[in-house]
């Protein structure tokens, strides 16, 4: 979706403000919101792309005015409510009012280290052949889905070069909607700064995105 999350090249956000000796979390509730989000993925039954879509799927003015853990937390709430795992009345009173729904699996303390260590690799075996090879010139398609995509607006319609054929990976545009993993070839595509930002922009800049094959066409 062309939402508030797609920030590359937008103006007016000011300077970067690094915080010296920044703590990992800035408040107790951030810790709990973070951990709840990680712990609920398995019982909630959603994947990382559904989670990302839940965070970005709100009016841009809201997206930009919320802190990152607020985005995480309200996305978690939304995903839980969508799946009838929690109701609003329960959050209001702060207690379970309805019987739990059966869930696949919960995260026990004994599993935490192993689950984190295993992670969630997204590379998949394939019997297809990559359409592009290193050095090929490609154009990022001009697509504007209202659903989740990982092709940022600032490269759409622009011509770049395949720098690396990464492998066949879960396709977020499908995975986010529940349409399945639909693995696709993934490439690192490098663009010259002036191709993205126009004549007169810094020619020493090169920018790459990692783009799945359905995002690309030969140029």
């Amino acid at each position, binding site marked *: 979706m062309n939402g508030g999350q797609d920030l590359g090249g937008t103006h007016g956000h000011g*300077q970067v403000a*690094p915080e010296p000796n920044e703590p990992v979390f800035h408040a107790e509730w951030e810790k709990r919101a973070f951990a709840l989000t990680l712990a609920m993925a398995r019982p909630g039954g959603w994947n990382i792309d559904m989670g990302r879509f839940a965070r970005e799927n709100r009016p841009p003015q809201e997206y930009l005015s919320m802190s990152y853990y*607020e985005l995480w937390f309200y996305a978690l709430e939304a995903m839980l409510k969508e799946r009838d795992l*929690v109701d609003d009345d329960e959050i209001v*009173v702060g207690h379970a009012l309805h019987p739990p729904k059966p869930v696949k699996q919960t995260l026990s303390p004994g599993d935490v280290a192993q689950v984190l260590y295993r*992670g969630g690799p997204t590379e998949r075996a394939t019997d297809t052949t990559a359409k592009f090879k290193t050095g090929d010139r490609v154009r990022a398609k001009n697509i504007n889905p209202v659903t989740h995509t990982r092709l940022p607006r600032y490269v759409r319609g622009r011509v770049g070069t395949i720098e690396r054929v990464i492998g066949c990976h879960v396709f977020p545009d499908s995975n986010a909607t529940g349409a399945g993993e639909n693995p696709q070839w993934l490439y690192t595509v490098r663009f010259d700064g002036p191709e993205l930002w126009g004549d007169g922009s810094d020619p020493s800049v090169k920018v790459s995105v990692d783009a799945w094959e359905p995002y690309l066409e030969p140029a």
Partner: protein
Amino acid sequence: MSGHDHDHHHDHDHSELSETELRVRALETVLTEKGYVDPAALDLLIETYEKKVGPRNGARVVAKAWADPAYRARLLKDATPAIGELGYAGRQGEHIVALENTPARHNMVVCTLCSCYPWPVLGLPPVWYKAAPYRSRAVADPRGVLTDFGVTLPKDTEIRVWDSTAEIRYLVLPMRPAGTEGWSEKKLAELVTRDSMIGTGLAKRPEDLA
């Protein structure tokens, strides 16, 4: 951090708490009562990223690459198993690529669409990495961003920005500072800052350690 804190929270005067804080507490209680989460597992998740996983991991990787040419070659060829040799792997680091800074090329990593970051080697991202100023400008004006960090590079140095739009996570291998010949990996690791592994900074010089 222990599970007992949860009971303690409810003793606070709620008027001091924001709407979001109240909702987070409420939701944790509901999810716990329903048996969906175990607060002890939440505590462990938090402890992992507060105490165990952080940029010291990445600094070890970089220091080893500086000190050991064979390791450096393995890291640049296929970073995920090379980093795994030091015991670092998993969530948000399933597919890692190491990017070598040279006098001719400086690498900088961003996620314009969200907050993708190589957790096993750098921990959780700082606020600025997730915020609009960095995400908007890193791809369009990386030299300006470097200025915000107090870094100026020669005009003819290529600035190579990597937007982490997929599940590939990028770790910058900063240049080894001069005057560190013969240093141990442990001492070299003290020169490696978090920002130098994102590409918004450079490694410290020996005189910075004094």
